[in-house]
C-alpha cells in the first residue's frame, strides 16, 4: 500500500459515492450531470492505480475511459434532449473542479515518471479527459437544442 493507491482509494470512495447518489436521486438534469462526472472521478483513479501497482500497461484503461466516457455522456445528451429541454442542466463549478483534479493527477504522474513516451501518453490522456469533460458539460447545457427526432 503506497500513497498512490491511497489517493486512488480516496478519490474512488468520494467520487464514486457522490456519482452514485447523484445518478439515483433527483431530476433528470442532475442524473446526467452525475453520469458525466463519473468519468472525471474514475479516470484519474485509474491513472493513480496504474502508478501505484507499478504497471504502466494499466494506463491504457485510463486512455479508453478518457475517450469513451464523454461519448457516453453525448449519447445521453442527444437522446434525452427532449427531457432535458426545460432544465438546461449545468454545473460549471463541478466541471472546472473535475478539470482541476485531472490536471493535478496528470502533472503529479508526469513528475513521478519523468520525460519520455509515457509522459506524452499521460498528457494526451489529460487533454482528452479535460476537453471531453468540458464539451460534454456544454452539450448537456443546451448543445442539442435544435435536434428533433434525429
Amino acid at each position, binding site marked *: *500500500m503506497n500513497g498512490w493507491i491511497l489517493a486512488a482509494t480516496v478519490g474512488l470512495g468520494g467520487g464514486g459515492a457522490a456519482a452514485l447518489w447523484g445518478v*439515483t436521486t433527483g431530476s433528470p438534469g442532475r442524473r446526467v450531470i*452525475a453520469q458525466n462526472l463519473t*468519468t472525471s472521478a474514475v479516470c484519474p483513479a485509474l491513472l493513480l492505480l496504474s502508478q501505484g501497482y507499478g504497471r504502466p500497461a494499466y494506463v491504457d*484503461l485510463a486512455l479508453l*475511459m478518457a475517450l469513451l466516457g464523454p461519448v457516453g455522456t453525448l449519447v445521453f445528451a442527444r*437522446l434525452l434532449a427532449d427531457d432535458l429541454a426545460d432544465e438546461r442542466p449545468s454545473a460549471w463549478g463541478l466541471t472546472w473542479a473535475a478539470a482541476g483534479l485531472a490536471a493535478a493527477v496528470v502533472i503529479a504522474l508526469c513528475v513521478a515518471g519523468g520525460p519520455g513516451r509515457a509522459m506524452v501518453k499521460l498528457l494526451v490522456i489529460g487533454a482528452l479527459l479535460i476537453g471531453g469533460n468540458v464539451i460534454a458539460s456544454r452539450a448537456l447545457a443546451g448543445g442539442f437544442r435544435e435536434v428533433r427526432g434525429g
Partner: protein
Amino acid sequence: MSDAVITVSLLLVAGCATAAVVQRDPARQALVLSVLGAVLAVLFTVLQAPDAGLSQLAVGSALTPLLIMLCVRKVRRRGRTKDGAR
C-alpha cells in the same frame, strides 16, 4: 492494505447494481448502468484483471447506453405516432 481499495470498489459495485435493479424507467436505468460499468471496470482493475476491465469499458461506456436509449426513443416515437393517428 490494498484490500482497502478492493473493499471500496466492491461496495460501490454492490450499491450501483442495487440501484440499477431498483430503477424502473429504462432511461434512468441506462444512466445507472453507465455508472455501474465504470465502477465494474475499476473492480476488475484492482483485482488485477485489466483485460476484462478494458472490455467492460469498451462496451459499457458508450455502446450499451446507445443501444438502450435508441430502444427508448423507438418506443416513445411509436407511442407518439399512435396518439397522433388516433
